[in-house]
């Protein structure tokens, strides 16, 4: 009966839609809780924010000056009023004013977001290229090649980014002079920072991809492809690779978030402009609105990236649509 199959189709689609809506609602809820949590955390902060605004512990502002600041920034209001104002402004895209730079946080972030975003995306792509390349070349080859491949992945995944960055800088910028030492915003200046972020991540993605690759190579369909006379490269690329990148895709959501936060370190090493510099300065000067702004941005990127990964999965893997 044709009507039954269309009914089933509609039903599954409806169910998928419900799951989708549920996921998006969940994400909105999480983000709301995240903003509340950061707000509360910032207000637990010991010390007087008005003092920070007027120049920190070294300065000796008068009581009148402090009170004026309290009124200007609304510190004299109750916590509830401040929270409502904060949330209202947040919904309108207003993240407040920096205590130190006396500039709107949204402006600061908009100015510095570009380089960090480019760095993060380039690193993610680069690490995928490295991981997939490494897997294709070394997984399930002879014993020594495979051992070398997986050993290298474990080693590389454990490297702290700042140290890797320094090594790359010493070797390729100071000794060999292939790349500019620091500051460059062009393509040449992007190579070393991107490699610094990509190499450890490639180690992580590579480990997962390799595991999956090895088990897929044992599957009957691989054997049947071989008996049909398909060459080794064909089997690897056309059959095994497709399956083995799936778990890596799940990791990518997490990876994007962690890249964004480790970019902070790499930007410091290479003295690169970007959100990292902004965040480190804000953290050390306790410029809370900027810290909250950058933190919220990273949280949004992280959560949305994970949501997208889930959605891609639902589309890519039909098995998930019917399950629970």
């Amino acid at each position, binding site marked *: 009966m044709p009507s039954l199959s269309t009914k089933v189709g509609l039903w599954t689609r409806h169910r998928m839609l419900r799951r989708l809506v549920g996921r998006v609602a969940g994400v909105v809820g999480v983000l709301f809780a995240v903003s509340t949590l950061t707000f509360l955390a910032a207000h637990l902060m010991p010390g007087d924010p008005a003092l920070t605004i007027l120049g920190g512990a070294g300065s000796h502002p008068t009581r009148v000056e402090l009170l004026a600041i309290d009124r200007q920034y609304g510190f004299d209001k109750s916590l509830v009023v401040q929270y409502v104002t904060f949330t209202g402004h947040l919904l309108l895209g207003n993240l407040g004013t920096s205590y130190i730079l006396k500039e709107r946080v949204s402006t600061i972030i908009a100015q510095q977001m570009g380089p960090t975003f480019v760095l993060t995306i380039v690193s993610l792509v680069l690490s995928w290229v490295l991981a997939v390349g490494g897997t294709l070349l070394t997984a399930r080859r002879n014993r020594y090649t495979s051992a070398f491949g997986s050993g290298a992945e474990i080693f590389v995944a454990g490297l702290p980014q700042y140290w890797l960055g*320094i090594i790359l800088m010493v070797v390729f910028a100071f000794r060999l002079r292939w790349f500019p030492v620091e500051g460059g915003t062009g393509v040449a200046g992007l190579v070393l920072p991107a490699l610094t972020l990509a190499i450890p991540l490639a180690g992580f993605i590579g480990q997962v991809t390799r595991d999956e690759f090895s088990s897929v190579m044992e599957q009957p369909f691989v054997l049947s492809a071989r008996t049909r006379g398909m060459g080794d490269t064909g089997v690897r690329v056309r059959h095994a690779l497709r399956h083995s990148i799936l778990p890596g895709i799940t990791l990518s959501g997490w990876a994007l978030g962690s890249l964004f936060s480790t970019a902070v370190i790499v930007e410091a090493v290479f003295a690169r402009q970007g959100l990292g510099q902004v965040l480190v300065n804000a953290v050390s000067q306790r410029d809370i609105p900027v810290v909250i702004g950058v*933190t919220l941005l990273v949280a949004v990127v992280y959560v949305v990236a994970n949501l997208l990964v889930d959605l891609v999965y639902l589309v890519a893997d039909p098995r998930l649509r019917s399950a629970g």
Partner: protein
Amino acid sequence: MVTSLTEALVVGPGIETHVRRRRRLSFRLGVWLSALLVVFVTVAAVDPSLLASGAPDTINLGHSFIAPSWSHLLGTDPSGRDVYTRVIYGARQSLVIGLLATLIAMVIAIILGVTAGLGGRWVDALINRFLEVLFAFPGLLLAFLFVAIFGTGVVTEVVAVAVGSAPGYARMIRGQVLAVKGSGYVEAAYALGHAPRRVISRQIVPNAMRPLVVLATMGVGQSIVWASSLSFLGLGVAPPSPEWGAMLDAGRDYTLQAWWLEIFPGLAIVLCTLAVTSLGRYFQQKLDGGIGA
């Protein structure tokens, strides 16, 4: 392992044990090297004067920027202090920070995870939502946020690293508790008429904690890296102290003239982390494989 099992089915049991023995041998070597390194670092942390004759903060301006040589194995810094001595003396601080941060993270995680696992539906849902919110921050970012709120310093550094890594552990512990709670032997204990409190303290908690040994071991490596990252960014231990991350921070301005100031403290962190992590993996294999592996 899937690989060797399928191979074994095809080519017979003889080959399988042969392959496994070879793999074990090279694996053993790595484990022994790691253990040796951990012992070395521990000795350096307990009594650094056993491994280095000088003092870590003797300033000798006549000997500044000496490249690595026999008299100064790892060179000297701008004030003429011996880098090898400083790396040895830095082990204590780096190790203690790593251990303490992991310990605190574990305590937080055990409280949250066990409460969620045993506390019934509502408590579980509540803690799970809370963890989900924390998961919206990549771990290192949570540590940054913590430092921003409570200011820089050693104590905040330790707690910040702990707070950053606790949510991940908590989720794993919760899963573990739930798995153990539903297992046959717990059911059997209930069926034998043991009181819930007794089952929880004798069966569920000890069995759920077992994989934590591995988790904690690997966690120490991560904590050391994170803590040194904070120090490197100037948000943790301040430079005159020989903590490894702080040494890297202090050497940053001289990378061009004195590469050894940046390479060796970093190498200490890398080797230490690698050793701790591979020991963790070894324990994990022991646990997973049971008696046979």
